[in-house]
């Protein structure tokens, strides 16, 4: 290696390290704070590590006083139902739109694709009235229906993947006398597995982290999700940063575990899910 290459290589790693420091520093500080006592928090610099690495008192307080268990249960329920619904319905409508020719098909496909142009955040004001009129305000179903109903992305992803499942497979099954339902159940749905994983990940991350929907549509305390439970720390714990930090860590840890164990799929999910 000549001199120039050494310099370039050093710069390369230096910039990567700088990126890592910027990405991690805010998180490390929160982690440190979550293990500090209130007094430590007031008297030490944010970059100082905690005196006792096993001081989990703040975690206990955040978890219990912040009702975070309720948050986890609600998030898990909403997540499970809306993802199951979104994948099943997405696959069904994509199957119909891709494999059959019928009157109004172009119109229907167009309607689904056009809806992708409407960002949910813009129509919230009017959507709220509809949820209210349906009597769903302050129920789980407000969030569930919104996550399922506005899920054009999964239809998009399924349509793309169906493109790669040869029609001859359907035809072969029909020669064996399989019904369309059997074809969907035994051939299409299983073969859509990579698409389902993609939808699962992209959608799962979005729902777990969504703040807007639960905040607006389910303000009742018993219905709070992880996001809204965390948001509630803002008032009463305004200055108790050690407790808030523990709350933050509690919300992040499941994401971290999921990320570390599913890294490969998560990367693929995002590249496949969002480019189109």
């Amino acid at each position, binding site marked *: 290696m000549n001199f120039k290459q050494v310099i370039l290589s050093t710069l390369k790693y230096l910039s990567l390290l700088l*990126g890592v420091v910027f990405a991690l520093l805010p998180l490390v500080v929160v982690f440190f704070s979550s293990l500090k006592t209130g007094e430590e928090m007031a008297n030490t610099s*944010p970059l100082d590590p905690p005196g006792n690495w096993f001081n989990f008192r703040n975690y206990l307080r955040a978890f219990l006083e912040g009702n975070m268990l309720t948050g986890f249960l609600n998030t898990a329920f909403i997540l499970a139902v809306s993802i199951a619904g979104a994948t099943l319905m997405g696959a069904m409508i994509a199957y119909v739109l891709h494999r059959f020719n019928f009157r109004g098909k172009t119109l229907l496909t167009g309607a689904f694709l056009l809806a992708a142009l409407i960002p949910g*955040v813009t129509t919230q*004001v009017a959507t709220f009235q509809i949820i209210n009129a349906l009597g769903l305000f302050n129920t789980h179903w407000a969030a569930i229906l919104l996550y399922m109903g506005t899920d054009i992305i999964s239809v998009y992803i399924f349509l793309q993947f169906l493109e790669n499942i040869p029609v001859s497979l359907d035809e072969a099954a029909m020669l064996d006398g399989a019904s369309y339902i059997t074809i969907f159940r035994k051939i299409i749905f299983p073969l859509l597995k990579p698409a389902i994983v993609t939808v699962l990940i992209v959608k799962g*991350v979005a729902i777990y982290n969504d703040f807007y929907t639960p905040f607006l549509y389910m303000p009742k305390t018993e219905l709070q999700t992880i996001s809204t439970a965390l948001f509630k720390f803002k008032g009463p714990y305004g200055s108790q940063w050690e407790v808030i930090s523990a709350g933050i860590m509690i919300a992040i840890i499941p*994401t971290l575990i999921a990320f570390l164990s599913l890294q490969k799929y998560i990367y693929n999910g995002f*590249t*496949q899910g969002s480019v189109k």
Partner: protein
Amino acid sequence: MLRFSNLSYKTQRKLIIIAFSIIPVALLITFSYLPVLNMFGYSLTDWNGISKQKDFVGLENYKVFFTNPKYYSVFKVSLYYFVASFVQLGLALYFATLLSFNVKFKNFFKGVLFFPYLINGVAIGFIFLLFFRPDGTLDTLLRWLGLGDYIQLWLGNPDIINISLSGTSIWRYMGFNFIIFLGAISSIPRDLYEAAELDGANRWQQFTHIILPSIKQIIQLNLILSVSGSISVFEIPYIMTGGSNGSNTFVIQTVDLAFKYGKFGLASAMAVILLIIVVVVTLIQKKLVREEA
């Protein structure tokens, strides 16, 4: 007994088309198209969102928005986020390019740079409140580096608040663009680089002549999406500042007008304007992409 598989394929086909599409279509209409339609309607009234009475006021709400600086100045805040999105895309492209070649600990770097994107938005809001507060992380860091004189009230000074907030937004979303770019770059055939290297092209030349042209579309797409993205900013400023100190964004204002002040008509008019901007921008992007392809 009547079994589905005993029906003729023609009947089956009819049944399945109806059965498989009825719920998705109902949801699509209820939660995508009906709100848009209603919103146009509300925007022409003085409705407060609750009372039975709605008076038709024509384009009055639109006039109010565009003539009152209190309302339209939110566009200025969008500019901060728009500029920040260039920084964000630049960084993302830089790191994606670096990590597409041989680097030690590649997966570690990839993971760390991408991870912030997966973090809960409320958590990020709090993390950066802690980061920016007086004597917080940033101030301590600046003192360490001997830059203590530059310490500011990061979230208290209206001249700086939007820079702090859009910085937070870069931290949050850079990883997303990074992963998209990384995916796009990895689909470039390896032998192109080898051929270029044989021709004596250095890394910079490989970047400008192979990588950039190959992922031009994705870059363009991200650039254009950043226009609509910077107008629809909501979470970070809402959680961190509630829109105070001049950090009010378009969406925060819309939500506040509707749900806090009961100005449903005006809020709907703003939402319609936002929708039109986003749709126009997206259509331009689609057209550009199609022309390229």
